[in-house]
């Protein structure tokens, strides 16, 4: 009896690490491009100038520097108010030591950091405009994009790292770095239903199989668009919905955290 009990305990101990990984996956994936596009700072991106509006990277072809500074001062004050309200709403009120409290504190802290970065970006734009004056009306150097780009990538990295650790994953992949191969012949153009020939026992070759596959893929993409564009088909956790909501939670320029927190 004692022996059986000790073997059972050993079994439990041996299986425990696998059980501790709550998701059961070692890998996860996100669509990095989508996360970049949904970042609030991207709303300030002007595709014409390829610069971020209201930051130091923005060219000012028509605006008077003093007007520009006055406008940004107002924005800066709004950011200060947001930060103050966020602190007043949450800084001393998130209590407890459980997982929910830890997540709430993390979300609060990251939101605060994000607001602080917006604030600094506006402040830097004001400083540069004050120093450079009319000279600043030219296109600023490419390097002026860097603080904004770094702020966006830092938020995405934070969200992915949080999801990685909280789900017990080793690696989080970015699916937007993949290209889908294209068939040599447009699918369905020549013999769309070749699989009937295959099932009928007719002669087939590897190229025919591939054409059949591409034609089927084309149909499935039209019928079920959500199912297309999946480089990872098994063994990896789709973190996209979680990443989108987390990124919103930590980057929205608002003094209110979501209720679920």
């Amino acid at each position, binding site marked *: 009896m*004692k022996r059986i009990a*000790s073997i059972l305990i050993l079994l439990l101990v041996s299986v425990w690490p696998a059980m501790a990984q709550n998701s059961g996956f070692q890998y996860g994936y996100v669509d990095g491009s989508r996360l970049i596009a949904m970042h609030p700072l991207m709303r300030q991106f002007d595709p014409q100038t390829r610069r971020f509006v209201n930051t130091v990277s923005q060219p000012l072809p028509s605006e008077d520097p003093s007007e520009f500074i006055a406008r940004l001062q107002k924005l800066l004050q709004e950011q200060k108010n947001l930060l103050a309200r966020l602190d007043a709403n949450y800084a001393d009120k998130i209590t407890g030591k459980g997982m929910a409290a830890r997540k709430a504190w993390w979300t609060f802290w990251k939101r605060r950091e994000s607001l602080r970065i917006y604030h600094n970006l506006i402040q830097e734009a004001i400083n540069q405009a004050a120093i450079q004056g009319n000279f600043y009306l030219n296109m600023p150097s490419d390097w002026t994009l860097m603080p904004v780009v770094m702020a966006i990538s830092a938020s995405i990295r934070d969200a992915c790292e949080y999801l990685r650790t909280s789900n017990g994953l080793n690696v989080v992949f970015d699916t937007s770095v993949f290209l*889908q*191969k294209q068939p040599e012949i447009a699918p369905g153009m020549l013999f769309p239903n070749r699989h009937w020939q295959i099932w009928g026992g007719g002669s087939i070759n590897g190229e025919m199989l591939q054409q*059949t596959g591409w034609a*089927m893929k084309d*149909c499935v993409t039209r019928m079920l668009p959500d199912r297309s564009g999946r480089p990872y088909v098994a063994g*990896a956790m789709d973190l996209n919905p979680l990443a989108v909501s987390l990124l919103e939670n930590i980057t929205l320029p608002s003094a209110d955290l979501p209720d679920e927190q």
Partner: protein
Amino acid sequence: MIRIQTLIITVILVFCQIMPSMAAPAMYFVDYKLLVALHPKMGNFDMVLERHLRSDINFADMDQLNRVNLQVASLSIQAHQRVETLMRDLDRVDLELAKIEEKVTGQISDFDNERGQFQGDNTRRAQQTKIAQLQGQRRQIDDKIIQVWDEVLNPLYLSRAQSKQITEGVLAEIDLMLETMARQLGGAVIMDSDYQAMPIIPEKVTSAPVVGADPLSIRLYQSLLNSNLVGDVPDFYKRDPQLAQYASAMRRDIEQSFDRNIAGQISKSPLFGQVVRPRGRMVLAGGQNLDLTRQALEQIFKKYAVRADIAARILALIK
């Protein structure tokens, strides 16, 4: 004695647990589109109509087939009448759309400084709303026409909704099977082999030195590779006691200079992307045994008891 046994069992159990992750590769590939295309439940799927042929029709029974054909012919006559009416509606909407679009393109307006907008802005907004409304009507009529022709083929084919449901079931079944395989392979990830890494190539090189335009820079890397300077100084530095005191400083300088030059060479690596661009491969070496397409298809064929000769012919073509 019991303690020793327990210890041995513990070691074996722990070893068995870490063994799969130690031995198995972390990434496998599968040709996902082939798994769908060759799934027996998609065997009667018509890729032109995107509908499955009805499984309750015996296509070898000519009487039954004739009855179905008569049904289709009768439905087709009714459909022609309905489609004719819909086509008249479509023509009416198209005419109206063309008239408004002609008006919109013909308008040239000046800026009204007092009102801070172009003259006729409000009219244009109303016209755009009307265009969007008509385009919506056009789409609705198009959808109705498709639906009418779909109904004609109902005696032969399942509805689009039914086909969609079957296809979703097939995809879910394949996903579940691959998830099980991934777990059996020690938590490996399985990728669709239709994807390749996107090569990241600089659009333009704005700063010198540029490879190909700077022969000295290319020669420099060659000479760095052949150099025997790192970690050593010329012999006379060691022999002369007065110079020997500078030897370590000189060695450090040489090493720093070497590191700086190598860093320069590494910084040019994106430029070499042009060389590898056409390949864009995920795996550069090994990986012959990483493709699970054949293994997954074998499982599907076994589950659906596909005739052995057909299964063998197909599997022989999967590399």
